[in-house]
């Protein structure tokens, strides 16, 4: 049995906790959060040991691994501590606010030879995996443009106060909290860009952070990319992310549900004919043994636990890969500051 601890019992923490709780190879032995109303409820109802102090949990719980779901600004400190304690670590996205810190964590995890993973769950969605496979296999020929968009309703009116998500210092804002998923997905599909040519970080309702991010990217070899994210669009019921990849032999339009492939005549690939082929999540997603909100949330935890059990380095979303994402996020932030004359 893998002995797991949780740091941060908020929205994502509770979701991870449920998935861990249902995993046959995991025993959740400790939970740490500063909010007593959550920890006391969990302790009373499930008997799990709870802590207010992370260091105490690390010292006394004999953990194999820890899942960290606290505000981004805390990630560097607590992840370092956990690695120094010899634990395998899963951290919510994004890894750190400063990419230098992310690279340091990646190095540390490597030196300690511990499984390290970040919660970019889109990489566990069957449609996105198939799109990436096709791009990597050259089905589209040379990729010359990537367009990625995400919309949803996180902040849909002006308000006073709020959570850490509305504080830039703690890692709030659309760029780190929302667009990070899309940046990571673009990296997953075509690799990281080398330059951000321009970016516009736009506040719609928020006082201290941006609600929309628009950026133009340039890739090694000259391909271009366009990123459009807006979390203040309430015409979307929940976060909707779509990527279109243009290549010399065809294109792919992919979202959570569908992978739509168009190939030019003469560019048939494997079972994909010329013209349109539409593949659905129903045939591209491997089932999971416990489902909560989407297969990808369980699949990423399964992969993490599997890597621990097999003493392997993990399948996807290493700290190294998440550092690349943080580097791009940072370039977008810098380009945004330039265009705003900051």
């Amino acid at each position, binding site marked *: 049995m893998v002995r797991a601890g949780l740091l941060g019992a908020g929205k994502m923490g509770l979701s991870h906790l*449920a998935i861990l709780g*249902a995993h046959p190879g995991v025993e959740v032995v400790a939970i740490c959060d500063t909010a007593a*109303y959550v920890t006391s409820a969990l302790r009373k109802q499930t008997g799990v040991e709870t802590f207010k102090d992370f260091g105490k949990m690390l010292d006394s719980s004999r953990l194999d691994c820890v899942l960290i779901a606290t505000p981004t600004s805390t990630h560097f400190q607590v992840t370092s501590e956990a690695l120094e304690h010899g634990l395998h670590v899963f951290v919510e996205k994004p890894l750190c606010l400063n990419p230098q810190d992310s690279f340091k964590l990646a190095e540390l995890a490597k030196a300690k030879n511990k499984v390290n993973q970040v919660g970019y769950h889109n990489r566990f969605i069957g449609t996105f995996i198939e799109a990436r496979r096709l791009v990597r296999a050259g089905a589209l020929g040379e990729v010359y443009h990537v367009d990625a968009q995400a919309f949803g309703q996180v902040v849909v009116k002006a308000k006073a*106060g709020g*959570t850490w998500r509305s504080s830039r210092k703690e890692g709030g804002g659309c760029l780190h909290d929302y667009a990070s998923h899309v940046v990571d997905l673009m990296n997953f599909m075509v690799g990281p860009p080398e330059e951000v040519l321009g970016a516009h970080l736009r506040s719609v309702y928020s006082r201290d952070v941006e609600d929309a991010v628009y950026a133009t990217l340039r890739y090694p070899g000259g391909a271009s990319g366009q990123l459009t994210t807006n979390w203040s669009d309430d015409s979307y019921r929940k976060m909707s992310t*779509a990527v279109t990849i243009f290549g010399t032999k065809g294109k792919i339009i992919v979202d959570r549900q569908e992978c739509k492939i168009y190939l030019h005549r003469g560019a048939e690939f494997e079972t994909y004919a010329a013209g349109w082929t539409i593949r659905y999540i*129903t045939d591209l997603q491997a*089932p999971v*043994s*416990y489902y909560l909100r989407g297969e990808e949330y369980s699949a990423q935890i399964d992969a993490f636990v599997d890597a621990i059990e097999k003493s392997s380095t993990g399948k996807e979303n290493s700290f190294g890969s998440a550092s690349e994402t943080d580097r791009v996020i940072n370039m977008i932030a810098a380009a945004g500051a330039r265009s705003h004359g900051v």
Partner: protein
Amino acid sequence: MDRILFGDNQFFGVNHMSEEKARAQAMQFRDTRSIMRVLDNAYDAGIEVFMCTTHDRIGEVAEIVRANPQRYERFKFYPCMPYAHKYANSIGEVGAIETLRRFAPGGLIETLFKGAFSVATQDLDKLMQLLVDAEMKNFAGLKTPVIFIQNVVTDLLLGLKLHSLLASFSNYVQTKYKAEAGFITMNLPRLVDALESVGIKNPIVCANINKIGFRMSGGVDVYRKLIASKRCRPIAMSVFASGAIPAAEAIEWVCGLEGLESIVFGASSRANIVQTKQLIDQRWGQAQ
């Protein structure tokens, strides 16, 4: 329980197969009148149960049904709560405590936090009751013989091993609303075990049940055995796996399952409603 139930995903831009289709449907059903037209088609085709999320818009539907008791004499709601995105979006925006303050009836949360018993000392049951009452307000005076918990909450409580809360929910809707509890889940076999462990026998459950095993955690065979075992009263949803299985083939398979009690499906056109109902009736005999 009725054998054929009408669902509501199509009204609220929920389509597990296509975001484009979901958006087209959200546009088609932008006003309550267009929703009522489809519900009337279903009701007139002999489907008397509307299994619906406690979405704000459903309040308007409930209003119309309440105002026309003769027209809708046999009309029943199976409310499914909560409309999770409402809470999830709110938690992301203002945090958990503020969200509870927003959705539980006035002042009571204040009492919980400041008063004699705080949430720190714990009364999850009381909190659950407040939220259920808030969600049920829209259905006052209407027939709600079964009240469901949505899968995101059922399955979260299942994973967190807060099974006793599922039992409390069941007791509460029985006492307060004279209704049976229903549980929507993506993890049927695990859920039935958990419910039995807290003394809920033969529960009403609603889960994806389809020929290709889409979102059936544990797999088709485990589901088939469980359904045949009569340990629960299952309602099949996502029978067409969001369109991945042709209608006739999907219905033929699901109606052939031993022990299946009911089917819930959604459709936007009269023709589709009538056709689907006919397919089920042909396999099951004239439904009640």
